């Protein structure tokens, strides 16, 4: 029996201690209530936003890309809707198991299988869609829809493929589109004020961006503006319902100055030889034909290509991807002579009556070095007109010898050499107009008089792209006035690039044109074989680019055994004379003769433009 005192003490102690515990709990509870209050009342806005962000996902909706037309309104590149079988790669464990399940329903050829296997890992890692098969037939769609429940991670959807009606004709001019890489995506989103990079990563697929050519240069215009769909999603990212749909703004169509017919003729004439053709409408400075051969199919590149086929293109020795028209560097060779002639007249070094004896070579007085012409024994007495027609090297060696190098360089750059001549070409190369500074900095040698002499016949360090040669041809045809070249009419910010010649009058230009007409029409002209190919007059200057320097024809015969050593054939031409409308340049690698190999290509292109 516990006595009452003790019992009272025990009860009091119990009560005190219970109060202690409850006071402790009271503190805990107050803290809890404070925390809940701050979550629900003080920070309500933040958490409300977070809850909305949780359940909302935006999916960008791709606009339809603009159509590209030629100058007569014919479609070059269009968008073709196709029903594609698309795979959510990140949800597939084994691609091989998937493919073997799929094989009885939809057949894939070996290229398609390769493409899927090669791209699976990458697409899975970045949570992107993988297109298993494009352009399904009605039968395939029906078959898949019936058994679709077996493939919860695959679906069929409409995707727009970029389709070039002339896939090999415009591969370098128009270029191709491709999937968006992350840097590109960033810049697109910035330009459209869409910062949700993560959203894009997860859901945006089938986006196309211009990779080369006009598709790249005019990408901003062609691609339009993304729309978006706003979905409510659950925690697993599954769509619950669509909340909002902002329509995409489709891309604008692009009306180019290209001419499908001339392009086709140029392409056919090149016949897969390595080289390039560029044709210009002189008045507008617009590009009507732009061909680099050999070519490749842009449709294959734009819409998915197996790495086998792609590697074959990459490893092709003829380098089909290489845009020779704006990136190939070739010595202008004798085609430089009209510009050198103008320099001589402008600077009073020569006039049209001035003549020299051409023994077939030129000896540099400084070091007695011999510079040879193409014809053994020379051309006899030559004035400027004859020197142009027979392409006398001796005449131009001696003219260049008397020229001031710095003035000459400035003169040549006015004709587009070493400069950017096109406003909207993709990645044009400036090639090389050598200067004494350039030589000192790059080769560690001073400028020799011999370098200037070489410049007089377009050999040596000087190089130009076919695009620059076409521009040069345009400037010659237009008597010194020209605009920057472009693929579209009335392009904004186009530059006028007129040449200021003080001492050269219209008569000089006419005589120069006359001498260039003589290149074809004269019985001694270097391109006289082109006479029968046309019914109107054409001015031209052919050139033959020596890749290996030889002293005699016999030596050349030996080195030409190797095709890569053969001379490049080159020609610039414009017509119909006397009021030329189109100018053209043609380069054929290892074609040997400017007049008879590159010449016919130039004439056929002019024929197609002028209509004979």
């Amino acid at each position, binding site marked *: 029996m*516990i006595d009452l005192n*003790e*019992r009272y*003490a*025990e*009860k009091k*102690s*119990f*009560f005190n*201690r*219970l109060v202690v*515990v*409850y006071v402790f*709990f009271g503190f*805990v*509870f107050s*803290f*809890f*209530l404070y*925390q*809940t*209050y701050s*979550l*629900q*009342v003080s*920070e*309500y806005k*933040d*958490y*409300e936003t*977070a*809850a*909305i962000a*949780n*359940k909302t996902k935006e999916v960008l909706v791709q606009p339809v890309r603009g159509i590209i037309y030629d100058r007569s309104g014919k479609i070059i590149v269009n968008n073709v809707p196709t029903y594609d079988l698309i795979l959510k790669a990140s949800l597939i464990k084994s691609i091989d198991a998937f493919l073997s399940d799929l094989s009885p329903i939809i057949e894939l050829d070996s290229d398609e299988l390769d493409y899927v296997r090669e791209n699976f890992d990458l697409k899975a890692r970045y949570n992107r869609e993988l297109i298993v098969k494009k352009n399904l037939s009605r039968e395939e769609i029906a078959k898949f829809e019936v058994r679709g429940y077996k493939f919860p991670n695959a679906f069929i959807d409409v995707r727009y493929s970029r389709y070039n009606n002339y896939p090999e004709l415009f591969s370098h001019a128009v270029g191709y589109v491709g999937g968006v890489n992350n840097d590109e995506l960033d810049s697109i989103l910035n330009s459209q004020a869409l910062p949700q990079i993560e959203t894009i990563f997860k859901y945006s697929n089938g986006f196309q961006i211009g990779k080369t050519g006009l598709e790249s240069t005019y990408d901003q215009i062609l691609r339009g503006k993304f729309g978006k769909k706003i979905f*409510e*999603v*659950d*925690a*697993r990212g599954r769509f*619950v319902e669509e909340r909002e749909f902002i329509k995409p703004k489709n891309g604008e169509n692009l009306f180019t100055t290209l001419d499908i017919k001339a392009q086709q003729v140029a392409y056919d004439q090149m016949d897969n030889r390595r080289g390039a053709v560029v044709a210009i409408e002189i008045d507008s400075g617009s590009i009507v034909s732009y061909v680099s051969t050999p070519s490749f199919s842009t449709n294959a590149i734009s819409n998915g290509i197996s790495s086998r086929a792609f590697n074959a293109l990459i490893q092709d020795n003829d380098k089909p991807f290489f845009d020779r028209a704006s990136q190939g560097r070739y010595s202008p060779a004798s085609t430089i002579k009209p510009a050198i002639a103008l320099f001589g007249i402008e600077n009073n070094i020569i006039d049209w009556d001035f003549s020299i004896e051409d023994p077939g070579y030129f000896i540099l007085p400084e070091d007695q070095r011999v510079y040879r012409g193409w014809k053994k024994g020379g051309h006899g007495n030559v004035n400027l007109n004859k020197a142009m027609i027979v392409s006398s090297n001796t005449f131009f060696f001696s003219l260049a010898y008397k020229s001031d190098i710095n003035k000459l360089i400035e003169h040549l750059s006015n004709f587009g050499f070493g400069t950017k001549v096109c406003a909207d070409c993709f990645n044009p190369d400036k090639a090389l107009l050598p200067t004494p500074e350039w030589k000192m900095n790059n080769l560690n040698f001073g400028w020799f008089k011999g370098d200037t002499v070489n410049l007089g016949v377009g050999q040596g360090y000087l190089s130009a792209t076919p695009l620059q040669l076409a521009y040069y041809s345009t400037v010659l045809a237009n008597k010194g006035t020209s605009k920057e070249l472009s693929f579209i009419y009335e392009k904004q910010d186009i530059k006028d690039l007129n040449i200021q010649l003080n001492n050269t009058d219209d008569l000089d230009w006419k005589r120069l044109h006359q001498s260039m007409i003589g290149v074809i029409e004269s019985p001694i002209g270097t391109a006289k074989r082109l006479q029968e190919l046309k019914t109107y007059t054409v001015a031209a200057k052919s050139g033959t680019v020596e890749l290996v320097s030889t002293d005699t024809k016999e030596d050349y015969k030996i080195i030409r055994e190797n095709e890569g050593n053969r001379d490049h054939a080159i020609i610039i031409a414009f017509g119909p004379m006397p009021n030329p409308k189109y100018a053209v340049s043609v380069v054929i690698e290892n074609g040997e003769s400017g007049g008879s190999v590159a010449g016919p290509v130039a004439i056929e292109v002019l024929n197609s433009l002028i209509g004979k």
Partner: protein
Amino acid sequence: MKKKLTFKNFSIYFDQYLFISITLLSVMGLFFLYSASQGDLNTVIKQSIFVGFGLFLMFILSQPDPDFYKIFSSLFIVIAILLMFATMIFGREVNGAKRWLNFGFFTLQTSEIIKIALPIFLASYLYNKPLPISLKHTFITLALICFVFYLVYSQPDLGTGLVVFMAGIYILFLAGLSWKFIFTSFGLIVLSMPFLWNNFLEPFQRQRILTFIDPSSDPFGSSWNITQSKIAIGSGGMSGKGYQEGSQAHLNFLPEAETDFIFAVIAEEFGFIGICLLLSFFFFILLRCIYLAFNARDRFCRLTIGGLSLVFASTLFINLGMVVGIIPVVGMPMPFISKGGSSLLSFYIAFGIIISMATHKKLMQK
């Protein structure tokens, strides 16, 4: 008012305050569970069977005289410990934890039994010990508490283990543990923290605590639950989004919405006002328990009421603290609200015993 309804030859023992408030809380729980389970009627029906059975059990268990519990408390604890061992051997393993014993019609979480048996046993052991509790009895009690804690902890179930441990300590404290001992051992525990950290916590438990201290260290791992829970509660605002309108719960962002995190669902749908109303029920029950403890007939009853009500309070506060992110995630249901069998029933049992302790008066014949 605690009632003893006396009939001719037997009496019914009943406390209407506790009974009504617990019944109301249980019914509200069903209502919340319907939303938290996204309108799954099966879950709600199953839960209402437990609630009905629980209320019945509570009523039945409030009938025996406290002496019954006092006399059989040693038997209860032995059975509870045996069940723990049985779980260790025959238990069903879920996610690497062995906590359930399968009886065919019902899976029993055995730690829930020991959570109740331990305080009753300790009350019956300590009620006649003179104040302050001697060092010997203190150590015996602590040894038992640690042993039981270890059994639960090793399942592993740190949450319930802590509640069991706390339950024992409450009894010891309320029974009159000497203050000298309290301060000394508190000092020792603080000093041994690093040792406990390294030797007694599983890596995932350590990770949880680290994540709790610095949530950004683990954005999609264990703190995902807490982040989503906070978003659910915070986005509820003052008045909530409305019944069944909580996007966090209904679009599955909130994990364990029916069990541990059901409070977040309630907070999202009913707002700060709603949870204040809900918590006032709990508050009322706890105040009622203090009153009952103070007016209990003897020391054993006082200790039992005090101990069991503190088990209830601890469970509630651990759950609430976890859901709002002021303590680490340990896995603890909200009493009478969360879905669950054993844990739900254990509180009806506890309150049945509390009512028994509160309503039986000693006959003053001596």
